């Protein structure tokens, strides 16, 4: 099975790992794989697939309520699951390093960078002298691309940028020279440019020190240039395991294909395909193949026989009764050209010389136009002012100056001072669907409040309209009587969109509405927005993901540090970016398609 790999350098061997929640509810089962020194392996799956559980299990850690109940994990010959007490403490960090998802919360706000590195080394090498410690810290900081001077070591985490914070996390892992390093979505919270640099550093470190790495992510495009192999996980089991080339060119499992088809790509505009249905929750695994209910290739035996992970082609393994054989076709062609907006004609929203300030000024002389029925994407990295701009347009901004015109009339800056007749026409959808819905109200209550407020509609008529709007966002009418906590992230975001739609808006401002969601769910939300746009809705879409821009936007406006650096049609801006900043953004955006671009 591992014939193609050099068995003698194997660093990690996991066999038959099983993790359960209380009451023997299975989270993870039958997981077996290995990693060799210097190898970087991607672990991919939707949220809830058990990928983070697997990642932390390698350090013999399970989140509260979960328990590792079976299997064997060997790292460099040590059986990690059998370690206890002091031996376990030394193995954590010393043998297996861990880099958490969000460096902003994973670094202690009360400890300086130098203190963190120092105590980490001392915890594992209590006998080390000052000079040894100092030398190792300096070496590691240079390794991860951070300054090594005293001033930097005296900084607190909040005084670092997001990229620097994640480099500190890398340094904390690498300073101990572990044999294996586990990274849990380490770049999800970072901008594309920073992400590209961090990934590059990681690759250099693993290769240079011969450290094996397991990189957990939900986005295959991110790891495409990083990994040697990919493990695909679904409902707590590995469903496919393949070398990078094989996986991206000739994925065999229908789930892997569906994941790939759901990723919006900067290089091509293609209809994104969401994966229908949900992954089964822990404990609700169906008989047979867990993916069968969502699988387009399902046969009757799939519902009965559970496929095992079997050799497909060399080291390529797949757990499917009817795996795909043919390569996927990723077309590089831009399929549809967006209709250019007729200049000057039906301009719905016009922004001229907009300035916004909080403690400091965040927007400088921003001007833009949004045509009736088009989708304008506001693109920029964090801190570029894109959310401030969106909020100012929606009437939620403070300290705004400049000129806003809506449908030919001047528009007030504060939503309170806008005409009630106009107010319902501009609606806002928030980034995080987990916080945007009132947890004490059912979906019906949430959705009927704006009806009563704007249109005075109550009772049966309100119920009828709520059901109609739920249908419009492809939710079942049963959802009306549920509370937000019993909905998934994608469903919540649909409810949030429905809350905007029920106000009969003409302009919908969407603030990063897919960034908290899985790629497959994102695809379905983007498809929904496309459909709504087809029905005449105008969209202002704030995002940092150029792939999403390609999938949905007609025109793009690039913001950098509060100023517009470039705007134009999507093809123009993403195809032939004129501004150097846009060019870096485009170059660093992960893509599934080779070359072609800078």
């Amino acid at each position, binding site marked *: 099975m591992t014939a193609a790999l050099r068995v003698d350098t194997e660093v990690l061997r996991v066999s038959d790992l099983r993790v359960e929640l209380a009451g023997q509810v299975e989270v993870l089962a039958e997981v077996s794989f290995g990693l060799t020194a210097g190898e970087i392996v991607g672990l991919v799956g939707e949220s809830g697939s058990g990928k983070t559980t697997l990642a932390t299990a390698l350090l013999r850690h399970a989140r509260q309520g979960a328990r590792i109940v079976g299997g064997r994990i060997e790292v460099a010959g040590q059986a990690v699951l059998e370690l206890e007490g002091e031996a376990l403490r030394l193995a954590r960090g010393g043998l297996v390093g*861990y880099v958490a998802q969000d460096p902003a919360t*994973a670094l202690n706000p009360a400890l300086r960078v130098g203190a963190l590195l120092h105590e980490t080394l001392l915890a594992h090498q209590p006998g080390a002298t000052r000079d040894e410690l100092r030398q190792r810290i300096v070496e590691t900081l240079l390794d991860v691309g951070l300054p090594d001077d005293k001033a930097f070591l005296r900084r607190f985490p909040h005084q670092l940028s997001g990229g620097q914070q994640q480099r500190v996390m890398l340094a904390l892992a690498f300073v101990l020279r572990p044999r294996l390093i586990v990274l849990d979505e380490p770049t999800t919270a970072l901008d594309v440019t920073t992400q590209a640099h961090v990934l590059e550093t990681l690759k250099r470190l693993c290769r240079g020190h011969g450290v094996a790495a397991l990189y957990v992510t939900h986005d295959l495009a991110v790891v495409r240039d990083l990994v040697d192999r990919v493990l695909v996980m679904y409902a707590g089991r590995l469903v496919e395991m393949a070398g990078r080339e094989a996986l991206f060119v000739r994925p065999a499992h229908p789930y892997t294909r569906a994941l790939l088809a759901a990723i919006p790509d900067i290089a091509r505009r293609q209809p994104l395909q969401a994966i229908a249905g949900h992954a089964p929750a822990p404990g609700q695994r169906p008989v047979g193949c867990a993916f069968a209910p969502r699988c387009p290739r399902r046969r009757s035996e799939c519902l009965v026989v559970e496929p095992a992970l079997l050799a497909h082609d060399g080291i390529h393994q797949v757990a499917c009764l009817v795996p795909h054989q043919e390569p996927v076709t990723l077309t590089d062609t831009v399929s549809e050209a967006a209709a250019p907006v007729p200049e000057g004609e039906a301009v719905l929203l016009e922004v001229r010389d907009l300035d916004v300030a909080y403690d400091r000024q965040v927007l400088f002389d921003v001007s833009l136009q949004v045509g009736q029925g088009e989708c304008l994407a506001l693109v920029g990295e964090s801190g570029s002012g894109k959310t401030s701009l969106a909020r100012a347009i929606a009437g939620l901004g403070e300290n705004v100056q400049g000129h806003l015109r809506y449908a030919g009339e001047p528009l007030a800056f504060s939503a309170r001072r806008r005409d009630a007749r106009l107010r319902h026409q501009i609606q806002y959808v928030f980034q995080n669907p987990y916080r945007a819905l009132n947890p004490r109200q059912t979906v019906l209550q949430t959705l009927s409040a704006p009806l009563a407020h704007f249109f005075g509609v109550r009772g049966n008529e309100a119920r009828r309209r709520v059901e109609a709007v739920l249908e419009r966002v492809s939710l079942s009418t049963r959802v009306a009587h549920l509370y937000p906590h019993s909905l998934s992230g994608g469903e919540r975001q649909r409810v949030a969109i429905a809350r905007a739609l029920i106000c009969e808006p003409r302009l919908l401002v969407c603030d*990063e509405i897919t960034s908290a969601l899985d790629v497959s769910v994102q695809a379905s939300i983007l498809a929904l927005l496309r459909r709504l746009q087809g029905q005449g809705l105008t969209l202002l879409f704030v995002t940092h993901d150029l792939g999403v821009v390609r999938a949905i936007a007609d025109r793009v406006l690039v913001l950098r540090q509060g100023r517009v650096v470039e705007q134009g049609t999507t093809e123009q801006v993403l195809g032939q970016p004129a501004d150097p900043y846009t060019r870096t953004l485009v170059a660093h955006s992960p893509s599934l398609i080779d070359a072609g671009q800078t």
Partner: protein
Amino acid sequence: MHEPPLRSPRAPAWLAWFIGRLGYGLLTAWVISLVVFIATQALPSDPARVILGPDAPIESILTLQRQLGLDQPILVQYLRWLGAALRGDLGISLDSQVPVADLLFGRLGHTLALLAGVLALVVPLALVLGVNLALRRDRPLDRWGLSTLILFKATPSFLLAIGLVLLFSMPGMGWLPAVSILDPQQPLWRQLHYLVLPVIALGLSALPYLTRMVRASMIEALESDYVIAARLRGIPERRIVWRHTLPNALTPAIQGVALTLRTLVGGALLAEVIFSYPGIGTALNAAIQVRDLPMIQGIVLVITLAVVLINLLADLFTVLLTPKLRTARRVKMIRRNRRGLRPWWRRVRSAPAQEATHD
């Protein structure tokens, strides 16, 4: 004043904030002096009549009015009073004909000694108990500990105090004096045994609140990502608790301590009465009973100023213990500030300005 170390030639970043905050503290103090003055002296009811009672002859009232300066215009009265107060002269007590300041500062010293005792007892105890309960969350010790604390909380504090007196000072087991009448001829530190029972009584009523606060913020900090990350880096558990978790859990506890102090400064009355301890609470009580106007003004002023000071110190400690606040620099002014900035009443912050982390 010593020279600042050469390493940091600049003033610490929080200093500007602190000076501003101090300014607001002084402003509050001034407003308080105004309120105290108006409430006691400037309201339509005649203090002289209040002091002398309804049956006093008109001549005595007029004499007293002259003595108190009540025949002057109200503004003159206030400025005179404020000027004297600033010089530390709070007037002469009508009851004992001794300067109010002398009386007051003796009493204040006693109250401060009591508070210091309570702090020295409660803060370490609350930290140790809170941390240990948090580490044994939902285990039997935690449940029993919490229930006991709630029992103390639910018991009225005078009952606790009387209970203590019964326990320790009954005939036959007179370990500690039942009453704490201090000998004014001796310095306080020679009669510390009189402080023990009042301190324990007040401490027991303050302990449950603080312990529960420390426990809750410890639990929150123990579940944070940075603690999990530290565990997965192989940091020893002791260090995780005391170095990684506790400093982050302290901030809410500081505000808790401040709240306890604020209630104690003016509200130690019950314990003072039960133990006959000569603190500020009993002094105020006595002054009100005999309508000793300058004394009432002085005590109320001191209590309110103490509350302002406690708040200021609590905020200062919070800022000093939170690196993010301590190191925050005032952000640079905006290119254009002719309008569109926050109005002044919204610019007031309880902490230094932070960089906006906005998209």
